């Protein structure tokens, strides 16, 4: 039963990435190699982020949760935006929308693998049954939405004339981990509750991204006219 459970969780975590690549039509515009490049970009960015964290927050790995240090720590997530920006401008090709989806997809897959694969391999194969692994796997879909939004907003922040609409939503994206942690601690939300919150938050962010994107398109169109 245990290995079967691992397979289930594995499918639940990683199949969405495959489905998005295969069936959203993106595979007609870009090769899978570009996604792999994006994953490599993710890993390098994480390395940079780790170095940064290790330099500036060496002793903060203690117990307990306090808002300000956690906030400062999650400021390191801004490195993600820089990495994603460099990746999309220098290593990916094609239309903006293609770069957004490919970058987001590769990035998200690498993120998911780093966060879940080992955890599932160790945890989900155990004999004891826990909903936790299913929840972790479902999180993967929420993360996908969040990261594609992040890619989209990163793309727009340097190209949009009115950065004032883009930046708050981008902040929502970048500090998502911080928001989850805070909500979890403050409202002591666990399990299904936290999962639901993550989905709601991700969908809201994605929706706001679409609005910002439309606004951006409108202004661009007007400029072209």
């Amino acid at each position, binding site marked *: *039963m245990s290995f*079967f*459970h691992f397979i*289930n969780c594995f*499918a*639940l975590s990683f*199949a*969405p990435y495959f*489905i*998005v690549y295969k*069936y*959203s*039509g993106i595979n007609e515009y870009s090769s899978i190699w570009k996604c792999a490049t994006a994953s*490599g970009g993710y*890993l*390098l960015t*994480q*390395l940079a982020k*780790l170095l940064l964290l290790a330099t500036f927050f060496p002793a903060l*790995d203690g117990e307990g949760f306090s808002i300000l240090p956690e906030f400062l720590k999650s400021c390191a997530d801004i490195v993600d935006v820089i990495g994603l920006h460099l990746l999309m401008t220098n290593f990916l090709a094609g239309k903006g929308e293609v770069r957004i989806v490919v970058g987001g997809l590769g990035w998200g897959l690498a993120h998911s693998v*780093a*966060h879940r*694969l*080992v*955890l599932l391999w160790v945890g989900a194969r*155990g*004999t*004891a*049954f*826990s909903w*936790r692994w*299913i929840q972790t796997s*479902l999180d993967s*879909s929420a993360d996908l939405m969040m990261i594609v939004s992040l890619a989209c907003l990163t793309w727009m922040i340097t190209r949009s004339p009115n950065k004032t609409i883009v930046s708050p939503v981008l902040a929502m994206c970048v500090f998502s981990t911080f928001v989850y942690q805070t909500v979890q601690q403050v409202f002591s939300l*666990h*399990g299904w509750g936290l999962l639901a919150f993550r989905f709601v938050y991700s969908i809201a962010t994605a929706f706001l991204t*679409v*609005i910002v*994107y*439309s*606004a951006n*398109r*409108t202004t661009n169109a007007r400029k072209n006219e």
Partner: protein
Amino acid sequence: MQEEIIDYFRNPALLFYVTLMLTVCVVNSSHQVGDVVETEFHAYRLQQYEISGNMYGSKNHRVSYEAVSLGSRALRRTMVTTWRELLTHDVDDMWAYSTGAVLVFIPDNIDELNDIDRKAFLDLEAKLLEVKTDLAVYVAPYNDDAASILNDVNTRAEKAPSAVQHLLQSLSGNTISITSSDQLPELTDAYKPLNIVGRLSSGDRASLTIAFVAHYDTASAIPGISPGADSNGSGVVALLELLAVLSKFYDSPSTRPPYNLLFMWTAGGKLNYQGTRHWIDEFQKGIEGGDFLDSGLNRKDDRIDLAICIESIGRKTDGLYMHAGKTPADNSAAAQLFRRLSTIAPKKKIELVTKKISLTTASSWEHEKFNIKRMPAVTLSTLASPTDPARNSILDLPSTLDEEELIENVRLIAEAVLGYILGLPETGPSSDARIKSEVSMLSKDAVDKQRVHHFIRQFASRPRPIGDKRATESVTANLASAAAGYGQVFKSAVTINDAKVFGITQNRLVAERVKPAVFELVIAAGVIGYLSVFYYITTHSQKTVEGVVAAIRKSIF
């Protein structure tokens, strides 16, 4: 060569691996654990030993079975129950199963049982001592985890009221699987517990020897939790204290009594006195040459005048029994000792109990091992009968020891023996009955209260079954170093004959909540459903997003 190494580091794949590993490590460590689905607890195994080819106790120690309640089908299952249930149910056919396990929860405060519970607990012990089974039998103290496990097991055992509920329960109900997690090594043949022998020499070659004997191991139905405070912790402590008290007389040549004294802490006493038998065998082989031998004797013509075995003398009773194989002759050392004991403590009920020695069954008292080899020996004990359940009970806890009584008994024995070896008149300083003054060879606090207390803490408060190699080794090492402060100490490794010791007196059990295998299929169906929905959304995403963008542009901007 150098080129190759440098090339290796140039390889971009290396950087990739390092990055991946680092990321995975850091991300992994920061993850917090959610709700608890497994608990781990210490459980103590039922005794297991073999004497003359007969197995006793539980033959197995591995557990990896689903938990069920008492009374359900138990083959390849772990029966989880409380000690009360075990008492009230008829479980004889349960022991007959060939594979499976039993886990019994006992009260966590066996020290504080009331009288009725105590009696019931003794009944349970008697039952467990009789058990011969292939099942792995464990006992664990009751706690909150135990309560939740029992609760789960019992609710599962109840029949569901309707068919639908029954179906639901069999699809998704929790079951608990119990697994033993420690992979402990079995005892090897090389494992030999030690006899510790302390010696006080008279310095005279012709002098006789008096031996004090006490076995230091403990045994009960559940060896891992029984500290055996009285049997035979009190004997161990008494011997140490006797050694400490009597060693003063051997300090200077002028006061040295004309007897050698031996203090023997023997191994495997609960296993038909293996250590005692070994020592006697070694002694009787007549070991030539060698100044001092492991047995603590120096020459083959060393003669044992009397071996005084001490067991269970720390209990509050008003008497002390001298057990012997037959009534000793009037002028023998044993008879003199008995008379002296009675004179020194006229208020105490000192009785002689004789019991014929059986050569075919296991010896009931330690002195019988000496008697079989025609050496004079007696056992001193507060217990009247060798079959007293207190001799191997879990309830033989340090709290049952009465330190005052123990000290009094030690003092009594010391005085009697001193009187004997120094040849003082048996009737006391004066035979005139009118003289009431107390006369003693020992100063008032020769038997040191604090020292006794310390010895009890050190030697009589922890389980030391022969099967537990570490406990046995630590107790012998401590005994040897404690005795070395007062006399010469010898150690000898005991070969166990005609019996077999088994290790693993305790284990760590892990109880995990698991779902039935079918439930995984239900989850698989759920996953497929979720992915289908995801597929549907993805295939329509481009159109939808474009539509939404267009709509927003039109309506808002």
